[in-house]
């Protein structure tokens, strides 16, 4: 019996060595949300991954294959995300990790990336400090500070003197609140109240009513995109904040493109700051939207989550091609630092060589009707914004 066991173990080890020495197959482990109430966001990421693979698989060097192994973290569950990351590293021997919709999940994987020296491409999670948690993390999505901090300054310049902040009670929400508050008060604005709202299926009415009763010029809100954004928008309309002369502003999550058609006219006039709008007038974006609609249906709009994953794949392809499929973790990180792309749907992007975080344009957008459909129409561009949180706090 013992003999058999050790024989089996030995055979297994030989098999492992065999696969890892055959470096022409690059294994990419994706930790993403494929089930549970947040599966819709995970699906957005996966669409970005699939679309990029379909368009660019032919660009890989001859003989190099990319194998994608997907694992489900079931939502904002750091314990599950950690287990999935461990499995991918120790059992599947992936050379690159990527994914995570949620900040807590990215944070759970960060120490694994450091310990196992596996580069980890964050495709969505937006809390500023994530990239400081491991030298093997690079991010292709966004940080909450990139949008909410400049929005604070913009608000003051555009006649908003008093603001009420209402954010979902988790990492990105707290980040958005801090970023907006800093940008807003540094320019002379006044915060008249703030509230943290629960993350799972809340009834937004008491919170929005409180905001209305405080009588601000604007409510700055953040909720994770998707159905929550629609629920927030409806509550904003039902409680008559718009009629009371209160504006709604926030990062682009609250007007995420894929949900706009469910929001209706109440969303008109909402101003957000963000790095991506499906309505963006750039050739690369128009081609991207066209390809997306061809793949997933004419009524579908790509949201920012799709783009974060799509560009994440572009970065991964860059390192695979440059190393001809032989992935060395430290060399991979060197290749990612300073990586630039002009082909992104959101405009020019770069990975900051110092912080490994994304540098990109931020756009001020207003919800308007375009051809009878409501859309995030860009009206102002702030070029190549670095994460302000790291700039202000001297973090790397």
């Amino acid at each position, binding site marked *: 019996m013992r003999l058999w066991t050790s024989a089996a173990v030995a055979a297994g080890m030989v098999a492992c060595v065999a696969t890892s020495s055959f470096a022409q197959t690059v294994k990419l482990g994706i930790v993403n949300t494929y089930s549970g109430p947040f599966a819709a966001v995970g699906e957005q990421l996966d669409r970005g991954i699939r679309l990029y693979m379909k368009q660019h698989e032919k660009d890989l060097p001859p003989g190099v294959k990319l194998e994608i192994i997907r694992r489900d973290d079931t939502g904002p569950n750091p314990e599950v995300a950690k287990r999935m990351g461990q499995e991918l590293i120790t059992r599947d021997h992936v050379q690159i990790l990527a994914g995570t919709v949620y900040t807590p999940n990215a944070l759970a994987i960060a120490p694994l990336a450091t310990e196992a020296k596996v580069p980890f491409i964050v495709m969505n999670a937006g809390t500023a400090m994530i990239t400081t948690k491991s030298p093997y993390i690079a991010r292709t999505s966004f940080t909450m500070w990139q949008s909410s901090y400049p929005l604070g300054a913009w608000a003051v310049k555009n006649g908003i003197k008093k603001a009420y902040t209402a954010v979902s009670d988790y990492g990105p929400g707290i980040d958005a609140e801090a970023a907006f508050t800093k940008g807003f008060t540094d320019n002379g604005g006044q915060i008249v109240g703030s509230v*943290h709202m629960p993350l799972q299926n809340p009834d937004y*009415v*008491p919170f929005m009513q409180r905001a209305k009763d405080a009588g601000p010029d604007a409510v700055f809100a953040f909720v994770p995109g998707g159905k929550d954004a629609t629920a927030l928008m409806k509550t904003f*309309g*039902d409680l008559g904040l718009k009629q009371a002369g209160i504006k709604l502003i926030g990062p682009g999550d609250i007007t995420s493109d894929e949900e706009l058609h469910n929001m209706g006219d109440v969303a008109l006039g909402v101003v957000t700051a963000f790095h991506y709008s499906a309505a963006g007038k750039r050739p690369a974006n128009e081609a991207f939207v066209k390809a997306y609609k061809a793949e997933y249906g004419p009524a579908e709009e790509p949201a920012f989550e799709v783009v974060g994953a799509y560009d994440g794949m572009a970065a991964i392809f860059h390192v695979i091609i440059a190393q001809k499929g032989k992935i060395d973790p430290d060399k991979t990180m060197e290749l990612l630092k300073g990586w630039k792309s002009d082909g992104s749907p959101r405009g020019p992007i770069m990975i900051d060589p110092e912080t490994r975080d994304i540098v990109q344009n931020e756009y001020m957008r207003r919800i308007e009707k375009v051809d009878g459909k409501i859309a995030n129409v860009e009206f102002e561009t702030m070029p190549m914004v670095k994460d302000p949180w790291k700039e202000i706090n001297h973090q790397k």
Partner: protein
Amino acid sequence: MEALTSILFHGLAYAMILYVISVGLSVTMGLMGFVNLAHGVFAMLGGYVSVTLMNRYGVPFALALLTSFIAVALVSIVLERTLYARLYGASELEQVLFTIGLIFMAGALVRYAWGPLPQPVTLPTALSGQLDFGFRSFPMYRSFLIAAGFVLIALLWIGVERTNFGAQLRAAVDNRRMAESIGIDTRLLFSLAFALGSGLAALGGSLGADILAIYPGYATEYLVYFLMVVAIGGLGSLRGPFVAALLLGFGDTACKYLIPELGSFFVFLAMIGLLLWRPTGLFGRA
């Protein structure tokens, strides 16, 4: 003042939903002593039925509500006759295990049929927007909820206090053996009360889909609130759960409005205090 009216208004709307959903649970628990933890399943099913009818088939709001009431009442009769009836008189542990199992099965079924996401609620345009009360305006739909809640409660109380069926029901709750010995068919009575309670839960689930999101975890997530209404109100009465729902609605809304950092913590604390003071609930019989 502004804050107080806001809390009272939204608390009242929330209390109406809680009451309409939970009252059936109080009656069935009081009548048969059956611990039906799966009561929320009926509210969830009602929500799914009406939301689907409205979103997918364009059925008018009122008709969708009525259909969800009837459909769920019928389903509940079938379940009561085939499953629940086997466990009357069984130990509480068996009843709890059975109904918890039912929750899991129902959750898995709706996940299979409708997917994991909360259902989007599209209300009729006549019920969206604002209603101006003169001194200030309130959201139309919540005002409608409060009005609809009062109508339902009035109907229910008249039905239980003034009709023959109600008299039999009250008799059976008070003393089941005596009621049987004077010729009341308590089995039939219980089936009807069970169906009525489940139908009301379905109505509450449909009306409240905007407040308590309809998704596969519904029956577990909100069970605590339904049980709190019954525990604080006391078993087997109509008035008790109403007062309890009001307390819970006002308390929870005030807490979210005034001290959101605490979340729902205050409500649970209040319940513990209340039950220490009156272990059988505000209107319960010892």
